[in-house]
């Protein structure tokens, strides 16, 4: 009998340890399934949660939470949050219900022990936490970590003075969660095990009930987005994952995580970060990603179709990140990609239509396109707050204020989109009646300015996407002569085609649109162009450009690079340098493009250096 009880106890403890490990593992490598990390949060809310569970008469027109990508996380969160829609009555109902369940848990025990009191009041704590979250935008992570760490620590260690235990262990748990992040979650699960080990009245059935209860609520600290982000970084830096991910299935899983992470960052508009995530892979596996996307892949021909597809996804998102980040790093290397990618739009959008098209349209300022893709995606995969959030700017850009307010209203009922939705509401008011908000917050002003910019950038009439990129860029520029971006795109094409005179013509307009006064600042590629104009005697410098050159604020790196390039060119003419060396050192510059035409020449047989991996 004793052996049997011991076995039950061991099984119970093991079940918690295993559950903890699974959740932690899932949190790190499959965060997309467990947590709504792309929303940087665990929670999202929909008002008709229960109707989604009605099998007789489901309402597909409302928000079916179970269709969200992260599934489990949102389902649990939605369940918790639905009670906070109707205010205090529901709050009381939750407290009473929670307490009742807790009483049932503990009713079979003849005496109330302190840990059971703690357990009994756990729903109350959770409720209070949620209430604070919804109502007062409390510093939730901190409070929550404090509460849970304290309560569990107290339960597990059976400290004699519960108040002291609460304070000390709470602080300890809080520090643990915030400082060591991921490790704290492991400790968290160990506490459970210890608690059940210490509980002499443990039974298998009750253990399962406790387990379910804790999994339901206890997932939260594990799932808090920021902590996860910190954790993930720490894990990757620790080298533990590095070993695991380089071999066998581990590599495959890691790649999958990489794809999802890149996708998430790109979807969030964090292009530079997305590049940072994706780049190490391409540096380690130099491969022309265009070939992968277009299906002309030879580099990975030995792999299975599924494995290639995974790499295709990564390639697509890397490309989108490249396009998106061009404004950030102002690097010609990224600039160069834009028309190339534009030409390959059909190739990108064919296999991965909606999501990539959405990002692409967002990058090009085609708000209506973004809206259309968001709606199509929601049709395919169910309503989604992230996509609704994407749709608001589109509605505002198109001056459909009533429509925008509908989406804003929906998002304001969520926890983690509320702030942004409120900003959009104020920005909409500002756009509609500029005089109405004289003391608008900086964030609102910024959003309103961005929306105005989108209005300038957006197309006025429908354009035939089958036209050449030159025609389309010219049309864009014609329709929106006040858009700096359009001018940049158009000039970029001229740069690539070595039409320096045309770019020079546009410099004056560029300076006017960017409201510049001397000393002037131009994009790096344009600076390179002016440098080449001055150096190369074959080129006539337009007189209108001369004052600009005189009052230019040159980027010292550009100047240095150009000088080095000319030296290298002379070396190359004398046979002192090979084409590969030139490409390696100057492939990302305009000067290289001007003199050598193509600056990326990566073939499967001669993979390029990391710097040119794209």
């Amino acid at each position: 009998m004793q052996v049997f009880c011991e076995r039950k106890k061991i099984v119970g403890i093991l079940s918690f340890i295993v559950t903890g490990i699974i959740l932690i593992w899932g949190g790190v490598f499959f965060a997309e399934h467990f947590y709504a990390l792309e929303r940087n949060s665990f929670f999202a809310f929909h008002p008709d949660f229960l109707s989604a569970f009605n099998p007789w008469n489901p309402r597909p027109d409302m928000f079916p939470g179970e269709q969200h990508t992260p599934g489990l996380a949102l389902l649990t969160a939605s369940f918790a949050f639905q009670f906070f829609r109707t205010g205090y009555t529901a709050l009381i109902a939750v407290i009473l219900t929670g307490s009742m369940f807790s009483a049932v848990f503990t009713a079979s025990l003849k005496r109330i022990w302190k840990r059971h009191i703690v357990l009994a009041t756990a729903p109350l704590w959770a409720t209070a936490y949620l209430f604070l979250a919804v109502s007062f935008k409390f510093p939730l992570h901190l409070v929550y970590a404090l509460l849970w760490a304290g309560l569990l620590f107290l339960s597990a260690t059976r400290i004699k003075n519960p108040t002291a235990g609460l304070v000390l262990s709470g602080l300890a748990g809080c520090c643990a969660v915030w400082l060591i992040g991921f490790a704290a979650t492991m400790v968290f699960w160990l506490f459970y095990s210890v608690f059940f080990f210490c509980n002499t009245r443990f039974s298998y059935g009750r253990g399962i009930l406790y387990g379910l209860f804790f999994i339901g609520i206890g997932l939260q600290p594990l799932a808090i987005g920021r902590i996860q982000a910190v954790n993930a970084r720490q894990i990757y830096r620790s080298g533990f994952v590095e070993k695991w991910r380089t071999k066998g299935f581990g590599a495959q899983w890691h790649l999958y995580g990489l794809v999802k992470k890149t996708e998430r960052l790109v979807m969030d508009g964090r292009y530079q970060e997305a590049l940072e995530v994706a780049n190490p892979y391409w540096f380690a596996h130099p491969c022309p990603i265009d070939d992968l996307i277009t299906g002309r892949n030879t580099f990975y021909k030995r792999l299975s179709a599924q494995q290639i597809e995974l790499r295709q996804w990564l390639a697509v998102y890397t490309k989108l990140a490249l396009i998106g980040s061009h404004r950030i790093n102002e690097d010609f290397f990224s600039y160069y990609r834009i028309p190339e990618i534009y030409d390959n739009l059909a190739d990108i959008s064919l296999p991965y239509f909606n999501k990539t098209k959405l990002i692409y349209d967002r990058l090009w300022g085609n708000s209506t396109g973004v809206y259309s893709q968001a709606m199509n995606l929601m049709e395919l995969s169910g309503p989604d707050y992230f996509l609704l959030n994407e749709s608001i700017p589109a509605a505002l850009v198109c001056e459909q204020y009533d429509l925008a307010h509908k989406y804003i209203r929906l998002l304001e009922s969520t926890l983690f989109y509320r702030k942004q939705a409120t900003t959009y509401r104020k920005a909409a008011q500002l756009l509609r009646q500029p005089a109405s908000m004289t003391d608008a917050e900086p964030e609102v002003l910024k959003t309103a300015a961005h929306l105005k910019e989108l209005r300038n950038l957006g197309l006025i009439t429908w354009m035939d996407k089958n036209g050449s990129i030159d025609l389309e860029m010219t049309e864009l520029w014609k329709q929106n002569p006040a858009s700096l971006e359009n001018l940049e795109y158009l000039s970029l094409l001229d740069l690539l085609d070595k039409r320096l005179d045309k770019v020079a013509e546009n410099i004056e307009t560029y300076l006017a649109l960017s409201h510049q006064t001397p000393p002037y600042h131009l994009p790096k590629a344009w600076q390179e162009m002016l440098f080449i104009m001055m150096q190369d005697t074959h080129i006539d410098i337009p007189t209108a450009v001369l004052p600009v050159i005189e009052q230019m604020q040159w980027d010292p790196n550009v100047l240095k690079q150009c000088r080095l390039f000319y030296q290298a060119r002379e070396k190359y003419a004398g046979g002192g340098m090979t084409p590969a060396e030139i490409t390696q050192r100057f492939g990302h510059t305009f000067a290289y493009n001007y003199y050598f035409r193509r600056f990326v020449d990566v073939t499967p047989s001669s993979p390029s250096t990391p710097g040119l991996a794209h």
Partner: protein
Amino acid sequence: MSSSIFSKYPLRKQNFDFKNFIFIISLTLLMACRTKFPAESENKMEPAPIFPAYASGISIPANIAPLNFVLPDSVPEAFVEISSSSCKQTFHIRHSMRFPQKTWKRLLQKAIQGTPDSLVIHIAARGKRTGFYRYMPLVWQIRPEKIDPYLTYRLVQPIDGAYQNLRLHERCLENFKVKILLSNSLMDNNCFNCHTYHNGDAGKMTVHLRKPSEGTLFFNGKQSSKIMVPNTLPKEIPDSLQMPLNLVYPAWHPKGKYIAFSTNILGTGGYAAHRRFINLLDSASNIVLYDTDSNQLFLDPCLWTHNYEETWPAWSPDGKWLYFCRTEKVKADTVIRYPDWSERVRHIGFDLCRIAFDAETGKFADTVQILLPSEPEKSYSVPRIHPEGRKILLCQALFNSVPYQAKGDLLLFDTADFTVKKVNRAETLNSEEAESWHEWSSNGHWLVFSSKRMDGHYAFPYIAYFDGENFSKPFLLPQEDGAYYQTVLRSFNLPTFTRNASPVRPHKAAQTRNQAARPLTIKYR
């Protein structure tokens, strides 16, 4: 708090305290009964900010479900007093007003018995930091003429090509019960369109399925069948008339033997401009006549033409006329002038026409009568004939045959004098946004139509009373949750009245699509 406190009070089984229980319940009931309209309140000379904005002056049928509404979230407390000649009730609400079904029926009792009545609604709402404001009373006219008790509609995404979750719903207008009739998740996720009933009888329905399981489904009571047009037309049809054949927009002949179908090939495309997220173009369309008894399809020379596009068939109630819309085929020079179809479509206008029909022989007359010729920025579509047969309600848009544009309006056309009166009697129904997909009730006193007036994007069903000459103000189809339309992300497409509940079930319909299609013979005459 020390650990000894816990150990002092063991959990014991206690007897149930009945007295306390009764006290609490009584107290709760007393609290709940505090529904006296606030005496001290400031008057506001404006209607209450309710959603949906059911305005004063709307007419509602005696058998309609309660017109529930919500007040803004900023209202923490409100009183709603509703009265008719048969009943009066006051409600104390937070911000959502849901009338109990029984109370609602009592309020409408007199009208149900056949006497016109009116509902007067007084609303007093309190602000978060203010006292009560008493708004102007709302007066809703209750009409004894009953509305058809069921409404069938598709819920669609108002975006081109989005039909992953397409369902045909049947809503009972006397309460809030909704039933799914068709669901494309059971049918290869294909698109289906234009559910049409025979004289409002839900037992006889036709619906067109698109690829991959294309075909037209017929439901007659519990029987269902499928027809599919052949890929090629018979060789006796001249080459110039060899055109694509699909069965798209149907119209049942009143006697039920014939169905007129238009054969559209529709192209969709998005617009980047304001308010135009979608547009449709008929690239080829004619009208054919299907004989349900002999399973034959007749191509008539007046309606199967190579120089015109005919669409939107609709029968007169006596079955002697077929009304439809028609335009000349786009000429080559127009194509050259406007190579982009999205620009070209702006120069296409449809006329309202009719052609005589002999139901005995099943033949059309030789001439087509143009009732309402199109003009620049006036194109007509979707004619719906009033059950009395004299008046036609149709859409007038800037261009094209599909009234999706923001300027789509409803127009009442009187066939008695063959002109549109200077005053458009349907003007009451129109707004700045598109109105379309209208349908008369079987008694001709009620009209349902879709309008995008709420936000310019999602179309919702509005109901209006028609007294034979004029329309009253329309009201939004009531929902159980007053805030329903604030959260719904679907358009109500093609709302259609039926007099009875449909026997169609989604799984049955899904099985029908896999049935072998009945052989269809085509005759050109």
